């Protein structure tokens, strides 16, 4: 970490402390107590750290899912929908082969990729803006899951509760230690590093950079934009689909409606906050995961409403974004 970046982080942290402190004073709370409670709830014990990592896992995968197409200059907000459709397809695989972890994961990855292929094809065939198509398809995927768990896939033994049958032990990812964190976290970290290397070291990374900065160069350099649109979208979809099936099989243990907890949108935030660079996105995903996971703890320990927690989270991002001005303001390097 260079000096300028360190500087920026310090400003973000100081800015956050000032903004959040002012807010706490405004609502009649002691700022230090509250900040201590946030720290406690996110990293205050082994349990808290585990929950933060657990929350960060799908956010990290969704950030990567946003970031891959963004390297080509595509703005996909579709990680949420791909996550849902991955969970749906993976659950479908589970219903066919109840104890095959590899088939379940494969189903999830393919499901996410397929759901991303739709906007990718719309883009290359009919020039349909991918932002709007991925946004609309998010809602459709979530509603398809809802329909399945209330209808055809409802567990007959669930006393009317809308959920699929449970995943068997064999179809779940192994857990790390005593926590609820599963191996998916390590997979996500490895995939992140691999993507980082691909983007910075490989020919493909350079191709994406070239096409992003000037798509008109493509025919001159003998590059196919179409191929890259399909490829980046499908890779992104596969990553989000993996997030969905890992969450469903190994955390929820069954397919349910509305299980995503906003991971897709949080991942989108992380990716763009990180300027679509992989390593900062990985660090930010962990930070955002911890901050979001601390929400209920802050409510519980200080009895502030969940809305106050949301304000604090918003202020955190405002401080981080505001601190970015430092970079452009002249102290760069």
């Amino acid at each position, binding site marked *: 970490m260079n000096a300028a970046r360190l500087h920026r982080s310090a400003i973000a942290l100081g800015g956050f402390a000032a903004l959040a402190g002012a807010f706490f004073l405004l609502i009649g709370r002691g700022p230090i107590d509250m900040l201590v409670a946030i720290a406690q709830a996110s990293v205050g014990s082994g349990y808290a750290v585990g929950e933060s990592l657990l929350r960060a896992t799908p956010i990290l995968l969704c950030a990567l899912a946003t970031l891959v197409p963004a390297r080509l200059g595509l703005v996909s907000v579709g990680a949420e929908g791909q996550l849902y459709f991955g969970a749906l397809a993976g659950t479908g695989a589970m219903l066919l082969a109840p104890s095959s972890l590899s088939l379940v994961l494969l189903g999830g990855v393919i499901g996410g990729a397929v759901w991303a292929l739709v906007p990718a094809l719309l883009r290359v065939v*009919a*020039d349909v803006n991918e932002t709007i*198509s991925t946004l*609309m398809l998010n809602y459709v995927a979530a509603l398809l899951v809802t329909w399945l768990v209330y209808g055809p896939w409802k567990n007959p033994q669930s006393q009317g509760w809308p959920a699929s049958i449970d995943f068997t032990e064999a179809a779940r990812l192994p857990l790390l230690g005593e926590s609820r964190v599963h191996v998916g976290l390590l997979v996500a970290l490895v995939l992140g590093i691999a993507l980082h290397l691909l983007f910075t070291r490989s020919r493909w990374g350079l191709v994406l950079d070239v096409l992003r900065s000037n798509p008109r160069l493509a025919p001159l350099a003998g590059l196919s934009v179409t191929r890259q649109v399909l490829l980046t979208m499908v890779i992104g979809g596969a990553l989000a689909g993996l997030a969905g099936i890992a969450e469903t099989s190994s955390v929820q243990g069954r397919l349910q409606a509305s299980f995503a907890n906003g991971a897709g949108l949080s991942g989108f935030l992380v990716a763009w906050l990180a300027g679509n660079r992989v390593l900062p996105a990985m660090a930010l995903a962990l930070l955002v995961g911890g901050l979001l996971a601390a929400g209920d703890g802050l409510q519980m320990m200080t009895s502030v409403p969940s809305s106050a927690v*949301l*304000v604090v989270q*918003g202020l955190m991002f405002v401080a981080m974004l*505001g601190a970015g001005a430092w970079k452009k303001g002249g102290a760069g390097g």
Partner: protein
Amino acid sequence: MADTLLQGLPVSALRSAAPLLLVLLGECLTQRVGRINLGVEGQMLVGAVAGYGVTAVSGQPWLGMVAGAAAGALLSAVYALLTVAARADQFASGLAVLMLGFGVSAYAGSGLVGLRIEGFALGAGGTTPTLWLAVALVPLIGLWLYGTRTGLVWRAVGESPPAASAAGITPWKVIVAGIAAGGVLSGLGGAALSIDHTRTWAEGMTAGRGLIAVGLVIVARWNPWLTLPAALLFGLAEALSLRLQAGGSAVPAHLLHTLPYLASLVVFAVTCARLKGGGGPEALRAVFAR
């Protein structure tokens, strides 16, 4: 069944569409000056809560609408500060504003839940003033953007800030104005939702309508005139998804609820295929490709 479906359907579609239309017009102006603001959802929420609170206290729904507009504008100032002064990423800044707006509105509004207000009286065929306000703004903004000198200035900034600058325009001032216009209109949209459409304040009551508006601007091809059909299409599909149930349709409700999203997407894709994309401000394209 056809009777129940069609009875009052046009007004129903308009009613569903009106708050969305206001927000859509605002975001259309913001995107026209080259900014894409995902924070409109949060701006709607603060507009809804401020409008509701002021109406409850004063008994004056129009005063509530003004308060909603002011609250929306105030929150959009945060977005302007981040993206213009600090030159921060637009998408991330918008989401930060969304979170802030959600949190602030829920916090401020917790004392308002379950208050009773007198909204606007129903007019002919179940219409209300906010519905006419939204519809009337469409030609006003359309004519302004395409027919006036300042409208041209805004569009020029949206196409190319350096070129506008060369023509003696100060781009950042125009951009801030475009963001503020989005703030005012999304605040109005939120207030219309709470004061008029539902006469309710509830935490997170916009339920994604702001994000949808950001998307529908693309469907409307950044053209204020086309925001009306885009909002109506969405409102019609939503009204139909409820009316088909009221009419005894056998299709599962969860599938019917996909209707507004699929209809918007299909109509957009079909028109895209015929027009071959395009229509967006150039400076906005630069946001996407970086």
